[in-house]
């Protein structure tokens, strides 16, 4: 059999299965899904692994229609939808007259994909858009399904907290699913004490700001996809000096980033300003370790040194990679434009001049900086001012349309619908109250040895994570007023456990909270939660789940109207 892959799925699938595993299941060949005739392959069965998207159905239709009927043996087609079989897609295939060609149509319910030891994602890129622009809550259904699976594996979660409309929906669905499948009551001792469901639209601010952790910056600048990042190759020169020069790699360098790499685990969540010193310290340690070989005199000592070599080499290559990445990032963070952009962001977040047209934004428009950058800033200003004054909003809109093209009116409308860009209603700006009560802006931030989550944005403490922190201690009752200002209901539900499974907490034992971000989470927010997990007197450990790992750029992009590319 051969598998034809929807390219988007190979990333997530790569995280859970190796090719060797598929080979064990007699997969001979694998192709990427694209229009045209399928490549020849001496196999009986062709299986399509696809997301249920109509545009993909068109490609499959094309594949099937072009298949040579005369060939022998004839090949059989199967289709496997991930994560859900779609009647719509089948209807579509039927209309194209190819549905009958598929012998089996199945689904592979892949809801939550593990990205790291403490991180799960559904990698559903359009979840936020679907929920807030199209009121399509299918992704929430999948989230609830995923949570049920998680509970089947890790035990029923006794306490559920949530904030936001989508959070409410998911909780309702979970309760309903539990009622409908009474058999699902399992006898597994619960791993999680609490589930916290958070709507992305409760905190629209955080993703718009530039992340300043190491991992966050890698994502902002180069984009991390399914734990992989592609980097410009220049800094990763070939290893052997003699060979260099001839064929410098032109293909981007691809690296996997996760906590399996010791060094990365240590620096990923640090503020970028604290990364340099760690790298140089590591370099000294490794140098010293290699120096040891001169002192190794006896055979035993040499043997011991040699036995450590593989580990030392791994550490060295990891250090080389991250030094190069840090250099690449530093080139950007030290640029004037990065500084100016950050200055404006921080002004907005600390509440300065959010109610008038900003000079820097105007300048960026005049110089035709990328539209997404402009939109991020304007939306940030809008969110930090609980909406812009009509006059200011109209001014920005006009400038954007005149400079980037009138068709972007569709995108601006989408942003308005999602609440990211809006006129101030009632003339009231709630943001200062929210900022002060939740201490979103911290003046005395310590980037090297942080004592507060605000280090991840060098001053701004992500609202979403603050909510999680305050829930753990002293509880949401202390911030009722602010919770009412944020959109959507907040609630608490309890799921009864059989008496035998109720936890008797040892003194000093940490509680485990699963935080589920509906609509996406940024790496900086994850870093902030990991920081809270590691706090000595924190008392709570966090596991993070989300519909999608996002940053401001990918997020805004998902909300933009797809337009044909400009000719230049």
């Amino acid at each position, binding site marked *: 059999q051969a598998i034809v892959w929807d390219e988007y799925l190979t990333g997530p699938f790569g995280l859970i299965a*190796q090719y060797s595993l598929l080979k064990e299941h007699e997969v001979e060949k694998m192709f990427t899904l694209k229009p045209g005739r399928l490549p020849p392959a001496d196999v009986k069965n062709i299986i399509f692994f696809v997301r249920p998207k109509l545009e993909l159905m068109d490609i499959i239709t094309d594949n099937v229609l072009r298949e040579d009927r005369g060939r022998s043996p004839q090949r059989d087609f199967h289709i496997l939808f991930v994560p859900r079989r779609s009647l*719509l897609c089948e209807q579509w295939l039927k209309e194209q007259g190819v549905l009958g060609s598929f012998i089996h149509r199945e689904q592979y319910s892949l809801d939550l994909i593990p990205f790291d030891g403490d991180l799960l994602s559904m990698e559903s890129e359009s979840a936020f858009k679907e929920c807030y622009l199209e009121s399509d809550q299918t992704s929430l*259904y999948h989230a609830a399904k995923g949570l049920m699976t998680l509970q089947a594996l890790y035990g029923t979660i006794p306490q559920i907290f949530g904030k936001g409309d989508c959070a409410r929906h998911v909780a309702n669905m979970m309760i309903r699913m539990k009622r409908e499948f009474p058999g699902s009551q399992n006898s597994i001792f619960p791993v999680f004490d609490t589930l916290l469901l958070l709507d992305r639209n409760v905190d629209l601010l955080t993703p718009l700001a530039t992340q300043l952790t190491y991992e966050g910056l890698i994502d902002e600048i180069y984009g991390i996809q399914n734990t992989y990042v592609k980097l410009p190759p220049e800094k990763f020169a070939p290893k052997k000096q003699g060979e260099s020069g001839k064929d410098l790699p032109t293909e*981007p360098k691809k690296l996997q980033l996760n906590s399996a790499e010791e060094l990365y685990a240590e620096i990923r969540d640090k503020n970028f300003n604290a990364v340099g010193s760690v*790298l140089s310290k590591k370099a000294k340690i490794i140098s010293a370790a*290699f120096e040891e070989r001169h002192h190794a005199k006896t055979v035993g000592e040499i043997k011991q040194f040699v036995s450590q070599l593989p580990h030392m*080499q791994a550490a060295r290559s990891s250090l080389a990679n991250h030094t190069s990445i840090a250099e690449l990032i530093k080139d950007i963070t030290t640029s004037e434009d990065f500084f*100016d952009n950050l200055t404006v962001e*921080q002004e907005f977040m600390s509440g300065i001049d959010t109610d008038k047209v900003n000079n820097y934004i105007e300048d960026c428009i005049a110089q035709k900086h990328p539209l997404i950058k402009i939109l991020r800033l304007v939306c940030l200003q809008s969110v930090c001012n609980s909406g812009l004054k009509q006059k200011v909003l109209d001014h920005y809109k006009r400038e954007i349309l005149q400079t980037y093209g009138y068709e972007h009116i569709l995108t601006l409308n989408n942003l308005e619908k999602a609440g990211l860009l809006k006129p101030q209603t009632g003339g009231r700006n709630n943001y200062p109250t929210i900022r002060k009560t939740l201490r979103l802006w911290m003046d005395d931030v310590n980037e090297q040895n942080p004592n507060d989550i605000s280090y991840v944005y060098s001053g701004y403490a992500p609202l979403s994570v603050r909510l999680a922190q305050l829930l753990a201690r002293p509880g949401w009752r202390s911030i009722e007023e602010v919770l009412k200002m944020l959109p959507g209901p907040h609630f608490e539900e309890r799921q009864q456990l059989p008496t035998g499974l109720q936890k008797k907490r040892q003194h000093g034992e940490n509680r485990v909270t699963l935080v589920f971000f509906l609509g996406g989470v940024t790496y900086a927010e994850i870093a902030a939660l990991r920081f809270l997990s590691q706090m000595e007197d924190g008392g709570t450990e966090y596991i993070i789940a989300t519909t999608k790992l996002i940053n401001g750029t990918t997020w805004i992009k998902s909300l933009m*109207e797809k337009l044909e590319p400009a000719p230049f």
Partner: protein
Amino acid sequence: MSRVRADEEEYWHSSKFRAFTFDDEDDELSQLKESKRAVNSLRDIVDDDDDDLERVSWSGEPVGSISWSIKETASGSTSSLDGRDSSLQKGSSSYAALPKQASSYSLSSLFKGRNKLSSFQSLSDALTDTGVKNYAPELRRPKAEYKDYSSDWSPKDTVRRMQRGKVCSLERFRSLQDKLVLLDEAVAGHDGNVITAVMLSYSTHLKINSLPIEILFRELEVRQVALCHLIHFLRETGEQKFLLDLLRFLDRTEEVALSQYREHLNIQDVEKRREFLKGCIGLPFSAEDASHIQDHYTLLERQIIIEANDRHLEMAGQSELFRKYPRKASILNMPLVTTLFYSCFYHYTEAEGMFSSPTNLKKTFKIPDKQFVLTALAARAKLRAWGDVDALLTTKNWLGYTKKKAPIGFHRVVEILQRNSAPVQVLQEYVRLVDDVETRLNLATKYKCHDVVIETYRDLKDRIQLTAYKGKVERGSAEEEKINSILSNMVRNAYS
């Protein structure tokens, strides 16, 4: 950039807000360099068996990963695959052998000490186990057995079965009432897939029985969730007419207008697109949007005229400007500001009556002064038409006196001119006009406008700086002489 640098410094130092600064920049950079050096020096020690270490191909795919093998199997023949097989196994196993760091908060660590039978080592094990292995036997089930023709399912069961991806016949729910019950059940399940499927069956039913589609619309009006799904579906499948009918029925006029406007993106032919946009003008947009749509139409109309004209001019080869600077692309469908730039570049001197003249564009689209000056400046500077630049920034008052004025600030003017490599004499004139002393000094020093630097220090009566600046000008040059004479003047004034 617009913010005066000095203010900025002052701001960051005086206020309590912290910027993302690199105070110890040199120090940090040197730290990075140091670690790089250390790493490099280590290379020669351990280079020989490096390849064993990295089981990652250059593109970074771990050998044996899915995307890696797609490329491999797609290109290689079966026989070469067999040969590679053994190394592949080895590769993937050693890759997996990288130690997973047991942080205190990892999922897998939560299960330490639990027996192997009852739990999974990690979530990924769990997913692959339940997924792949269950999947395989299911493949072999015959088709007939798989389809479910049992018709006894209640609406609730039907929805539940559909949610699990089973095929259910919806034909059983014959009456509209039955279908509505089914729809409500589907909505309660929140699975968009099922909701849409039920709705489609409903609308097919109406069609077959030639009932008016308004019946569906009316029912959906009280079922907002279902309605949203239908709208989304119609948008995806491009059933524009159905969609517009629906939105109109619901009185969501602005959405109708935007949906219709969106259609213009699918029209390639410019003439047709223009016609279409003309039709959009009357649509019920919000007041603000309506004026933008009107502008969009007018702009395209202009562009078509300009394009026809200029293409002709360019082909004829008569115009020196077009010969010297051939057009990079057609102006059709470009944004307004780009069009203005184009017109300032190729049609700067045209009378206001011409559609392609910059002033005409400015008037028609009410382009603000700032935007206009900025664009015109960039275009004229690119052509190195310094005379035009001067004229653009000169205003005459009613007495006939002339004065230099820049709505964008002279520091921006300098920047634009500098980017177009204006000569120092030109640059100097505008640097001199920068209001803020600090910025003026910065710009003048940066772009070597010696006269401006010297004069500014003279006005500031800053002997120390002036003396220091002497080292930066050429020995024996006119500038040095100027500094000397100012310095001696200053001394004389001080004593007299």
